[in-house]
């Protein structure tokens, strides 16, 4: 989660509104320009119509048609316009002074936009209508100043508005997004609380009937199903525990009773002994599976206490030395005097036993095992380095999988749960078990446990 959703929403909204604001100034001024020009043309048209009417009336009064006209002849509304009136034969009856050096004879019939200088000598765009009716030819024009000014104003307004509106949209949509997303933050917090330890907790369903409320309900239904599955798994494991243990107890008691019988032949006694041992291996396997079922359900009971790991490690070293006798394995150690972790002693001894067994099992003849322990930040780290076979990078995780027993040594004893259990137990403590490195010079496992707070 590099950028929270609310920032993203704010940013997206701002970008969208900026694009919209950039599109608007290319469309809107053109439309307005077009509308205004149409209106202007109509106004000029009205002017020519009036002028033709006046000219017709004047002709009717019998004044010599060739006599030039004065400014007074024009209606007041037309006096500021560009005006030119000619006879059919081309002689000019009237020409307003504001044409200046422009030659109106070049004007085409109908509407035209031309450039005419003003009295300061600046070029101005002007709109002119030229029309012939009866004996007269009339041109009426006006400057486009107002319309062009409006275009300029519009463009300027958009330029100013773009950043301001974008910023407003950015902030606004950020605030809106935060408000809308608030229930999601609450949901996330609740979902984090729902765990194996507290499976009956549920997400808050907001009172809004919207998508978020629906999502909460859907997720809650999933959590219901998960909880059912969890408790079913737990019921199964405790039921299985009872079901397995009873026959195992009967087996053991019966076999040990049988073993004390005086009339047994030595070979029979040996058979009974080996059956007893198998019964106990079955017991161990059964206990391991139940332990894993519990860790999977997150229902492992831990009784952590401040525990000095060093005596525990010495016990494990003791075991490794004896287990390694057959293969002449040397166990060395470099340990501090004390290392107090927050841990459950029974579980720690299982972790160390499993790790030790594994290290001896996968070691070579005349190999070595080196054990060190140290504090690092808030953790205790126990490193077990052995001269076992090199574990390839791609197998680094596989060795922790259940019932995995390394292909290099097919005849290795055990059922392949040791490292998995050790890792699960370490993680249940808030620690971990990792393969730190595996090279020709040695394979190192790191057991990480939380230090006890002093």
């Amino acid at each position, binding site marked *: 989660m590099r950028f929270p959703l609310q920032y993203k929403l704010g940013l997206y909204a701002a970008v969208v509104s900026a694009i919209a604001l950039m599109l608007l100034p290319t469309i809107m001024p053109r439309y307005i320009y077009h509308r205004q020009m149409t209106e202007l043309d109509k106004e000029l048209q009205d002017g020519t119509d009036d002028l033709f009417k006046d000219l017709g009336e004047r002709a009717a009064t019998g004044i010599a048609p060739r006599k030039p006209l004065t400014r007074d002849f024009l209606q007041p509304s037309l006096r500021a316009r560009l005006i030119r009136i000619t006879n059919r034969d081309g002689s000019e009856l009237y020409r307003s002074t504001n044409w200046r050096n422009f030659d109106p004879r070049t004007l085409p019939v109908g509407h035209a936009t031309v450039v005419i200088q003003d009295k300061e000598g600046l070029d101005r765009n002007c709109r002119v209508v030229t029309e012939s009716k009866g004996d007269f030819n009339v041109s009426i024009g006006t400057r486009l100043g107002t319309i062009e000014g409006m275009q300029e104003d519009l463009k300027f307004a958009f330029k100013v508005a773009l950043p301001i509106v974008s910023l407003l949209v950015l902030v606004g949509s950020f605030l809106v997004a935060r408000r809308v997303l608030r229930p999601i933050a609450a949901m996330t917090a609740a979902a984090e609380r729902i765990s194996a330890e507290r499976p009956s907790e549920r997400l808050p369903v907001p009172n809004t009937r919207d998508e978020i409320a629906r999502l909460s309900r859907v997720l809650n239904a999933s959590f219901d199903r998960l909880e059912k599955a969890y408790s079913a798994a737990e019921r199964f494991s405790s039921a299985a*525990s*009872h079901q397995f*243990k*009873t*026959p*195992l*107890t*009967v*087996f*053991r*008691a*019966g076999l*040990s*009773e049988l*073993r*004390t019988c005086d009339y*047994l032949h*030595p070979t029979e*006694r040996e058979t009974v*002994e080996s059956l*007893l*041992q198998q*019964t*106990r*291996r079955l*017991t*161990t396997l059964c*206990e*391991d599976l*139940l*332990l894993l079922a*519990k860790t999977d359900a997150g229902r492992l*009971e831990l*009784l952590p206490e401040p525990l000095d790991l060093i*005596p525990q490690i*010495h*016990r494990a070293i*003791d*075991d490794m*030395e*004896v*287990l390694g*006798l057959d293969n002449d394995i040397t166990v060395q150690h470099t340990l501090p005097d004390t290392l107090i972790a927050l841990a459950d002693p*029974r579980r720690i*001894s*299982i972790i160390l*036993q*499993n790790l030790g*067994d594994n290290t001896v099992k996968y070691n070579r003849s005349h190999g070595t095992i080196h054990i060190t322990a140290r504090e690092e930040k808030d953790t205790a780290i126990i490193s077990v380095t052995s001269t076992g076979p090199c574990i390839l990078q791609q197998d680094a995780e596989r060795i922790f999988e259940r019932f995995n027993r390394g292909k290099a040594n097919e005849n290795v*004893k*055990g059922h392949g749960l040791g490292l998995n259990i050790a890792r699960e137990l370490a993680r249940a403590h808030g620690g971990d078990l990792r393969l730190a490195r595996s090279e020709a010079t040695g394979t190192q496992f790191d057991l990480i446990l939380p230090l006890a707070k002093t």
Partner: protein
Amino acid sequence: MRILVVEDEEKIAVLVVRALQKAGHQVESCSDGAAALSAISSNNFDFIVLDVNLPVMDGLEVLKKMRADKNHTRVLLLTARDGVTDRVTGLRTGADDYLTKPFAMEELLARVEVIGRRAPSPNQGDIIDVGDIRMDIRKHRVTRAGAIISLSPREFELLQIFLQEPGRTFSREEICERIWEREHEYDTRTVEIFVMRLRKKLSEDRDENIIETVRGIGYVLNPPAP
């Protein structure tokens, strides 16, 4: 002793009852919590072997009611090995000891003996003296006739088991279970090696058989002369 066995699994109950009878006890049994309570209130037992998982009323409940009635009969709880909380609450509720299922029958018998005849108390203190061997559990030190014997942690634990009940025969698997939380595949052989090493360290040059191998069963510590 008059012993009551409360166990709902008939097959286990039969074996336990038979073993206890063989050991010379007077044994009665019942298979649920309510029946156990009525049997306890109407009889005067010296000892009760009580399973935690029982129908009608579980073992811890029976124990609680018993202790509330000021009945102080010694109780050995049978629990599941992974039932840590059962064990802790069991001892808190007033059980004298617990045994995890599946248990070795010899161990059950031994516990019954030890707890049943609490006086003279077994060697449970910080310092245990057996003959000329002295074990200081707190200081983690063992001496024989005054001379310090340096033991590895497992050798120490092994000796502690022997010293707490000298003269009792321990099977290899009972030793295994008491020393190792999880048995490894090499178990009984590992015990043999540790016993061998311990024997050597204890005896040094003495001509004696302090830890004797009982063929087909296990080991026993013969208390040396003081």
